């Protein structure tokens, strides 16, 4: 028996159909999109939903009527990296990366060089934040300074009053711990968070103290690991005193159990970043029990004689890539968003701390209020923090993994089963091995 292929679907017709289909699919590639791009420009903006740039968008589009911002509500660096791996296919024009990503990608030369723009505005920008966007190996700025994620001490004035303690203008961490013990005794509420998860979240307190002491995880270009130097050890010794004081809640500040503790009135204080007001305090401080209207901010306690009174947690920047077809429009956006008064006001209203110094001296900035904080002028504190924000907090590609390793190694140091100097040396050696893998 001979098999016959069904009539009407001969090889010829099959090939013909395939050719017609491919032509149809290929035609739009040569169609109007190019012509459209000449007049009107659309910039794809990789930012998460409810981002400060949502408030900048109408301002920018009014200034530049031919440019439309496409807010993609997408800020996944893994997706972004996939577009880079695909030679720029789908790479956004504007993104909002963390500083360690800026440093990592900046070294590769894939980020748009914005040196000229940053230098033209340098008198108006925070030097500490500018440093974060500077790539030592290339001598260029690979991103425009974004939010300055300074850290301060959030506290509940009602609980500290109840304990009979007034926060002084200047004090040390050890003095703070003594006071926190009294607050805990009087109110039962914690004044620190110290998650014993043995991961990056365990290490935050250490990073704050290290920042205050002028130390860092690496040197400026990430070629050397410095976390186990004298300052790193001093910072860990301070953190052990925090642990031993037993005034901390064992929860992660970004998670629902910590939020529940704020709501339940179990948190009297905590070192948090500037953006934590909108992230953790305002959504959870909603009644008397959770301290509605009683929250305040102070500079961090001092970590040593010469220490600064702030630290860092997070803080992204505005970047673009060499794949963008509209570098001028991208730079215009950067300047509008965080290098001008109008953009800075919009971002400041959202809750971040813009790097634009004239705004940080302005009435618009100082007059921002929040119901959870009553009539307290918290932004005046953040301006003082910006003044002390040092440019020696280097966040290189190994930064995140290093903090995870430190967090894992901290617990034996806290319970005294491992000597701090020895423990830090061990973790330092491990990070040195890991860091070699980030050196190309």
């Amino acid at each position, binding site marked *: 028996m001979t*098999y016959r*292929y069904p009539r009407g679907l001969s*090889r010829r017709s099959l090939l013909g159909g395939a050719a017609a289909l491919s032509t149809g699919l290929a035609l739009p590639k040569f169609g109007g999109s190019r012509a459209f791009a000449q007049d009107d420009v659309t910039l794809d903006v990789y930012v998460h939903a409810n981002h400060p740039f949502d408030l900048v968008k109408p301002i920018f589009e009014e200034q530049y009527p031919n440019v439309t911002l496409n807010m993609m509500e997408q800020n996944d*660096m*893994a997706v972004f*990296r*996939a577009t*880079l*791996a695909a030679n720029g296919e789908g790479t956004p024009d504007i993104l909002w990366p963390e500083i*360690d*990503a800026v440093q*990592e*990608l900046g070294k*590769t030369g*894939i980020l748009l060089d914005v040196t000229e723009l940053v230098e033209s505005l340098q008198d108006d920008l925070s030097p500490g934040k500018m440093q974060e966007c500077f790539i030592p190996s290339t001598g260029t700025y690979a991103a425009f300074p974004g939010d300055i994620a300074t850290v301060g001490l959030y506290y509940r004035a009602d609980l500290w009053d109840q304990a009979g303690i007034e926060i002084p203008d200047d004090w040390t961490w050890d003095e703070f711990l003594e006071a926190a013990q009294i607050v805990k005794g009087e109110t039962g509420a914690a004044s620190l968070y110290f*998650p*014993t*998860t*043995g*991961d*990056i979240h365990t290490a935050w307190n250490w990073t704050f103290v290290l920042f205050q002491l002028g130390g860092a995880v690496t040197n400026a270009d990430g070629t050397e690991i410095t976390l186990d130097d004298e300052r790193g050890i001093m910072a860990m010794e301070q953190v052990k005193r925090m642990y031993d004081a037993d005034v901390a*809640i*064992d*929860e992660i500040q970004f*998670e*629902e*159990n910590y939020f*529940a*503790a704020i709501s*339940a009135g*179990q948190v009297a204080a905590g070192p948090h970043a500037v953006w934590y007001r909108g992230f953790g305090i305002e959504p959870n401080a909603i009644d008397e029990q959770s301290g509605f209207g009683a929250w305040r901010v102070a500079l961090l306690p001092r970590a040593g004689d010469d220490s600064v009174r702030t630290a860092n947690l997070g803080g992204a920047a505005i970047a673009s890539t060499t794949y963008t077809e509209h570098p001028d429009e991208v730079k215009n956006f950067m300047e509008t968003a965080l290098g001008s008064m109008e953009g800075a006001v919009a971002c400041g209203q959202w809750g971040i701390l813009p790097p634009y110094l004239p705004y940080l001296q302005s009435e618009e900035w100082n007059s921002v209020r929040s119901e959870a904080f009553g009539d307290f002028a918290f932004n005046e504190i953040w301006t003082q923090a910006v003044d002390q924000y040092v440019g020696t907090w280097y966040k290189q*590609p*190994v*930064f*995140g*993994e*290093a*903090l*995870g390793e430190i*967090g*894992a*190694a901290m*617990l034996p140091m806290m319970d005294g089963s491992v000597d701090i100097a020895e423990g830090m040396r061990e973790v330092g050696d*491990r990070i040195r091995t890991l860091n070699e*893998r*980030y050196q*190309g």
Partner: protein
Amino acid sequence: MQSSTTFTYWSDRRRGSGIGVAQAATTLAASQATSPKSSRRMKVAEVARHWPEYLCIAPFFVLFAVFFAYPIAWSFVLSLQRWDGVTEARWVGLDNYRFVLNDSVTRQMFSNTLLYLIILVPLGVLLPMMFGVILNIPQLRFRGAFRTILFIPVVTSVVVIGIVWRLVFGTANGWLNGLLAHVGLGPYNWLKDAQLAHVPIVSLTIWAGLGFSTLIVLGGLQSIDQDIYDAAKVDGASGFNTFWKITLPLMRPIVIFLLIASTIQVMTMFSQPYVVTRGGPANQTLTPLLHIYNIGIGATGAPRIGDAAALSFILSAAMFVVVFVQLGLTRLKGGE
């Protein structure tokens, strides 16, 4: 002479194996042709003659090649390179394998997996068997309702339940600690204590997987011929003997399937530690897939794609070894 005998043997064998006369003739003709060029031409002609059939089976091979074979091959290439996804990849030979095998985190992660295998694989077989047998009792009231309840976790997102689990096992305001406080126990640090952190992971895995495994067991139980049970009843077999001597032996293929499936499930566990503990405390609940994700995607820093790829192949090799050992042991037990 020797080759002629061999040829006759294979020709006969092919005919005898039911391959069509036409194809045998083609093979014969092909074998007689001495030139490799003409042999190749014959093969091309053969393919051309049967092109509709080849076209019908082509989608599978195309999809397999594009989505399975190529990614696996490329991953292997990546495992021999150092690459961050942006700059030029650099050949490093077996350095990635050497590094991850000597890495203390890798040792910790495999040690965690071993612990989960020891706890979860026996439970992954015993619990579905137990629930399957109970739900198969015809006299059981509300059988349908129980089956539905047991199956609900299968259609529920592990990620969503993982978030609920975090609330249940929270320390200061956790629901479980709240309950235990009523009887004067706790509070326990479920998510941060090195030993206790396994409890939410193990319980979530069992909760999420039990329904599907029980369904498999139920299917197996219901495929056993009722006549065998009737005959055993006539012979006066007790309930225990019936289960031990009839049900269990006949369920052996199902048990082996569950054994292998739960082993693979445990070795590729990701969502539970990712959502509930993030692999902590101090990597005590870190699983291979979570670690591969963390370093490959750059969840904690810049991506180390080569290390992640090397670790993936090491994990695959480990899985092959474990499953083959299991298969060997079950065959030995089965007397094969």
